[in-house]
């Protein structure tokens, strides 16, 4: 190996480093290193003159490698690697010695801090002396995108991406897209009809030449990495051919099986063969296998008999579809916290105690009661309605620790909708605080109180139970300090939001993390709000955390923008610091193959072979290999060995 010519650049970071570390001594010490040809210190290396001096020094002293001893690599590694490249050497021959966060800022004693800074810098010098000049690996990308979840988040994301000219596959678990938003009657703070603003987007999706819609489908397996994922999707059979179906509705008339309608949250019922709702996209019927009397052998067959279009096919089979995509957007949304878990409020067994979504369906023109607010038990118009907020939210002891964020607003909305339907009724709201941050939100709540005379009671409801045809609600008004007792005709619980059923599974399949509450985890809480920890997989909507429609749409578009940016060129740069096999040492024992989290290693005639595109350079293989036959470029065993020596002044 020809002797290295390393340049060391010691940054004072003003006094941030210089105050505790003797920077000029550090620079001198580094000059004594065998491989160091140039060494200097400067007040702000990251400043323009600082950076230029690095570039100059590299050129003038024909340095082949650089160590900058400064702040954390997370901050300026890129800066200085770019400088190296600008000076004509590989960016991967530049290493950062972190002597600020890991040294100057955490120690007071100048002597100790300097000694430690020397060790840190020396080990970087040793390491860089063996760094290879590497070039990023250009990986051709698949310029197609999969969006998982057909709610408003998925729809928005899909449309934005498709409109940018990229092919999109939109996968929805249910028979129709639309998600929870389609169940809402009106939306705060404008009280405009939810369906009316959503269904045009749904239609656009169904008509969009760039969007392939896969409903009644679930993602089963994802392999590959950013730029080139391979996704296995299972398409469940609907037993109805959407092309042929004329939507004549004859089949539902003859279908003998009646089951609760999930779209109306059980407030109405449907048949085994059904269309979720009039505006369903795709506009077609679905035969609910689980409800049907039997397809194999066929027990009933009435629907097929009456279908003149011959759209019904009992022999339809589940289909596995393989899709290659370059990026994935996850928008799997939320579910309400199950009422069954709220024991203090009857665990869902008290009649006329509804959850928020059920109430939406009551108010909705297309809902159970055609838009008349009637209580389920006796279809009478309720005169006293109690709304309870924070049910399951903000309750670390028993339920969810977090605030579900939208309940304050939709409860206010519910109260107002109710008053608009039943002007002579009384609406009570039990709340802990009112959180109405957002354009026009506070005003909206005020109107609920003033115009619609909703009675807001600050306090919790201790319990509720059925008493003489009514629901007795026992609570306290903490402002007056009095106990409150209301005989309500109907109670609406603002249940917490939680990640939708199956979020855990999808997170596993996609190999992306979840936070402590089970929502999908973003890569950085502030700076990477729509990225997952896995490159090429993005998040939006309530799957990432409780949020309302405007926020969801904004996030969906943000995720779309990220995807469009990612796929704006035909190739992606993959880091070249990947595993490398020393064939002479490899015995093909397959331990690295087993250990690799990315399935990036395979055996080829008895020797390990690394797929450099799949490899993320984690080094699990090299720590597992008994024979030092595989190591990660620029973090080789030899390099670490010498860093250890440097740390111990050997």
């Amino acid at each position, binding site marked *: 190996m020809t002797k290295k010519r390393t340049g060391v650049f010691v940054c004072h970071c003003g006094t941030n480093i210089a105050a505790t570390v003797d920077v000029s001594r550090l620079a001198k010490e580094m000059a004594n290193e065998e491989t160091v040809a140039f060494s200097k210190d400067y007040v702000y290396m990251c400043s323009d003159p600082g950076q230029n001096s690095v570039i100059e020094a590299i050129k003038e002293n024909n340095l082949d490698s650089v160590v900058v001893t400064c702040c*954390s*690599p*997370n901050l300026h590694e890129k800066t200085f690697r770019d400088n190296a490249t600008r000076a004509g050497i590989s960016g991967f021959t530049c290493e950062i010695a*972190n002597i*600020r*966060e*890991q*040294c*100057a*800022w*955490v*120690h*007071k*004693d100048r002597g*100790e*801090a300097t*000694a*430690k800074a020397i*060790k*840190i810098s020396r*080990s970087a010098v040793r390491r860089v002396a063996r760094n290879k000049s590497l070039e990023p690996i250009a990986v051709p990308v698949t310029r197609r995108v999969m969006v998982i979840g057909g709610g408003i988040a998925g729809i928005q994301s899909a449309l934005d991406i498709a409109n940018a000219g990229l092919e999109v596959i939109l996968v929805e678990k249910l028979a129709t897209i639309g998600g929870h938003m389609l169940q809402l009657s009106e939306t705060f703070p404008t009280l405009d009809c939810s369906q009316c603003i959503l269904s045009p987007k749904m239609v656009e999706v169904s008509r969009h030449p760039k969007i392939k819609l896969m409903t009644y489908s679930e993602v089963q397996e994802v392999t590959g990495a950013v730029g080139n994922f391979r996704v296995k999707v299972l398409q469940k059979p609907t037993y109805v051919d959407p092309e042929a179906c004329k939507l004549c509705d004859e089949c539902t008339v003859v279908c003998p099986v009646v089951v609760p309608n999930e779209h109306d949250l059980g407030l109405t019922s449907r048949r085994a063969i059904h269309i979720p709702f009039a505006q369903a996209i795709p506009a077609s019927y679905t035969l609910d296998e689980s409800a049907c009397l039997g397809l194999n052998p066929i027990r009933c067959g009435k629907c097929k008999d009456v279908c003149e279009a011959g759209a019904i096919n009992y022999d339809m089979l589940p289909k596995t579809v393989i899709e290659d995509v370059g990026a994935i957007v996850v928008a799997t949304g939320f579910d309400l916290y199950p009422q069954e878990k709220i024991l203090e409020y009857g665990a869902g067994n008290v009649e006329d105690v509804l959850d928020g979504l059920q109430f939406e369906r009551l108010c909705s023109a297309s809902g159970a009661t055609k838009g008349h607010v009637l209580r389920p038990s006796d279809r009478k118009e309720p005169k006293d309605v109690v709304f309870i907020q924070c049910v399951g939210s903000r309750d670390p002891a028993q339920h969810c620790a977090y605030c579900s964020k939208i309940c304050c607003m939709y409860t206010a909305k519910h109260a107002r909708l109710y008053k608009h339907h039943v002007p002579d009724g009384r609406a009570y709201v039990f709340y802990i605080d009112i959180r109405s941050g957002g354009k026009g939100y506070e005003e909206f709540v005020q109107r609920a109180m003033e115009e619609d005379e909703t009675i807001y009671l600050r306090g919790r409801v201790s319990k509720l139970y059925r008493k003489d045809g009514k629901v007795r609600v026992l609570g306290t008004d903490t402002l007056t300090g009095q106990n409150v007792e209301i005989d309500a005709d109907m109670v609406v619980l603002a249940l917490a939001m939680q990640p939708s059923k199956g979020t855990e599974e999808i997170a596993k399949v996609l*190999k992306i*993390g979840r936070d402590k509450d089970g929502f999908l985890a973003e890569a950085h809480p502030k700076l990477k709000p729509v990225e997952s*920890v896995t490159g090429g997989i993005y998040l939006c909507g309530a799957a990432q955390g409780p949020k309302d429609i405007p926020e969801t749409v904004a996030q969906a578009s943000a995720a779309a923008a990220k995807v469009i940016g990612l796929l704006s060129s035909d190739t992606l740069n993959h880091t070249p610091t990947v595993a490398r096999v020393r064939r002479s040492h490899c015995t093909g024992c397959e331990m690295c193959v087993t*250990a690799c*989290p*990315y399935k990036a290693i395979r055996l080829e005639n008895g020797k390990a072979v690394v797929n450099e595109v799949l490899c*993320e*350079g*984690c*080094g*699990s293989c*090299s*720590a*597992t290999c008994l024979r030092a036959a595989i190591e*990660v470029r620029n*973090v080789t*065993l030899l390099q*670490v*060995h010498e*860093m*250890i*020596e440097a*740390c*111990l002044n*050997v």
Partner: protein
Amino acid sequence: MSEQQAYEPKIVAFLCKWCSSAGSDLAGVSRIQYPANATPITVPCSGSVSPMYILSAFNKGADGVLVSGCHIGDCHYMEGNFLARRKIHLVKELLQFIGVEENRFRMSWVSAAEGAKYAEVVKEFVEDLRPLGPQEKLKAQRT
């Protein structure tokens, strides 16, 4: 100055890039003070820490060795720290088996958000190492 005062434990700390190294950065950003005895070596993942690193560090005179990674489930590479947990457990058992003091070797999970914890881990480690004195058992005598 007596031997005890003169002795400052030398610790080699293998920190995973994504959590523990970032965690130690946070300690810095938050200006949390801790002893300067631990020299960090940032590695991609705790799963990339070969037992050879640990043995070698002791052989070259480390008084203590620390391996720190992401909490289980948080590994940037998904599984690296699971592999580390198993491997390191064996190293630890082996060291204790031949009579190396338990407190010479330590592993911790420190997330990017746990700057304070990193500082605490180092502080504790140094305190636990002081009474043990210099590590001579595995250290090479090269004269």
